[in-house]
């Protein structure tokens, strides 16, 4: 039993990281109806931003401490938000009225570009992520071990989710985002500056991905330029599972994927763990293509 709870906690930690990435996918899809393939690589860049920031922060703040952890995370979120906005501006905006396939191929191109430029700039070998937050075991009960890192992952995810909920539901720009997702033409006619809202959405999603990258690196401290591919794809599956375009759905989907994957790896076979997410994707698309919390869309001619 304690092993099961242990796996569940590990799964929850992984799931919250996937949930943070999934939110970016789902927000962009909700507004632009396209899969930002490069989102997983923003996650990777977030981790690398943290890797290079940590020594600089250590000269100002005592490291490892909560303060230094927050500083590293905050700055790398800001950097990635900027990057996300730049990518949208340069690669996606010129294609906004083109067929979806063109945009999808461009997104794949951007993703490959970030990965291989990353490999060239950062080096292909995995790097050890520095300790930015002190680690100590919180609980040690009969084989059950929970580290402070896992608690931090859950707490930070929860705070970010609440912040996102506040932005989307209570602020003016959040209202504009929802309007755009509902009907872009009508929103533009009502005087909403769609370009600004789309840039903001990309920035917000990329910041969340960067936060996920830091949390991931804190928990699994080997980072490399291709680390974003699989979490990115799994987070996309999470977004589809929850109902793409639906924010609570993305969070729920992330947690479900994370927990399932950890349980399968723990109890059945760890070699199949990377196939789990895709298996779930195929099942959900066959049974309920609109996702767990999604609305069914009817295609009109």
């Amino acid at each position: 039993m304690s092993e099961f709870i242990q796996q569940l906690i590990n799964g929850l930690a992984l799931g919250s990281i996937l949930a943070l990435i999934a939110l970016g996918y789902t927000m962009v899809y909700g507004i632009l109806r396209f899969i930002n393939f490069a989102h997983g690589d923003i996650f990777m860049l977030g981790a690398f931003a943290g890797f290079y920031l940590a020594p600089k922060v250590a000269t100002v703040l005592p490291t490892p401490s909560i303060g230094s952890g927050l500083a590293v995370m905050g700055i790398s979120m800001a950097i990635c938000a900027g990057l996300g906005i730049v990518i949208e501006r340069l690669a996606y905006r010129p294609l906004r009225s083109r067929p979806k396939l063109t945009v999808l191929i461009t997104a794949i191109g951007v993703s490959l570009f970030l990965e291989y430029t990353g490999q060239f700039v950062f080096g292909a070998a995995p790097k050890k992520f520095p300790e930015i937050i002190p680690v100590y075991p919180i609980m040690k009960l009969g084989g059950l071990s929970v580290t402070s890192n896992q608690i931090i992952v859950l707490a930070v995810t929860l705070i970010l989710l609440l912040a996102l909920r506040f932005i989307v539901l209570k602020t003016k720009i959040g209202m504009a985002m929802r309007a755009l997702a509902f009907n872009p033409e009508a929103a533009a006619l009502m005087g909403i500056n769609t370009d600004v809202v789309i840039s903001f959405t990309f920035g917000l999603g990329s910041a969340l991905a960067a936060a996920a990258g830091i949390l991931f690196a804190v928990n699994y401290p080997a980072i490399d330029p291709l680390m974003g591919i699989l979490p990115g794809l799994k987070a996309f599956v999470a977004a589809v599972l929850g109902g793409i375009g639906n924010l609570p759905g993305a969070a729920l989907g992330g947690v479900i994927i994370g927990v399932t994957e950890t349980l399968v790896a723990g109890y059945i076979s760890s070699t199949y763990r990377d196939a789990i997410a895709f298996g779930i994707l195929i099942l959900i698309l066959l049974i309920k293509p609109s996702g767990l919390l999604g609305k069914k869309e009817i295609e009109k001619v």
Partner: protein
Amino acid sequence: MNIRHAKTFLLGAIALSFLVSLGANHINSYWLFIAYDIGINIILAVSLNLINGYTGQFSLGHAGFMAVGAYTAAVITNQFGEMNTFASGAVFLSALFAGGLLAAVAGLLVGIPTLRLRGDYLAIVTLGFGEIIRVIFQNMEKVGGARGLSVIHDWTNFFWAFGFAAVTVYVVTSLVHSTYGRGFIAVRDDEVAASAMGINPTKYKVTAFVIGAFFAGIAGGLYAHSKQFITPGGFNFMQSIAIVVMVILGGMGNTIGVIIAAVLLTLLPEFLRPVAEYRMIIYSLLLIILMLTRPQGLFSLRKSPAK
């Protein structure tokens, strides 16, 4: 490609590749292996073009089907020892066909449930299936698992590689130019309108998928008997992307362009050896710039499609 000359082209190309294969001893073996790669990549790109270009179904799992063909053919030929040219030819041909057929079955299994999906969903699901196929091979200890499988025979030669490339080009071209094949293009251009005209989009999509997978399987068999060593990692997502880039560079739905792109992109890495680490950066930039400026592909005379 002009359809009336297709049969002449097919016979001519096969005869030519046979003649060249007779003189293959005089060719530098380094260039010979690159030539095999060109033939194999033409098969892969032209067959993917049937799915991505003519039928408009964006598939990112072509390497998975290639893996099925490669492993099937390799496991079959590994059962045989040395034998004379005719016997080995017969065994190789049947092994390649077995690989192609099994890949086609995989294509059918993947296609039936997923081809009801559209656009980006389909891309992700095919990507997922490609990865699942790879993970399955990785867990199959009988074929070496992640360590890979040695292939005993080096039966791939100029004749097989380019003979099958010619067959692929012939089949795909005559298919899309036939009365039946117009349906593929109709499905691509407007699925709703096509189904209103009595075309069953799902049937066409699955057909394209199965035929594409069949030739990818053949290409996988040829690849296995050229490299003589295959690993599941060799058929990953990146390999699928490499084929997709050929199709996009050549222009989706433009067989000649895709063939030129396959040749160029196989040769390009050889000339880029001194700057090998930039290769993928160049590829990805090429992809982005192409989509921004010439989404119809480099070697296409068509105007970019109207919005």
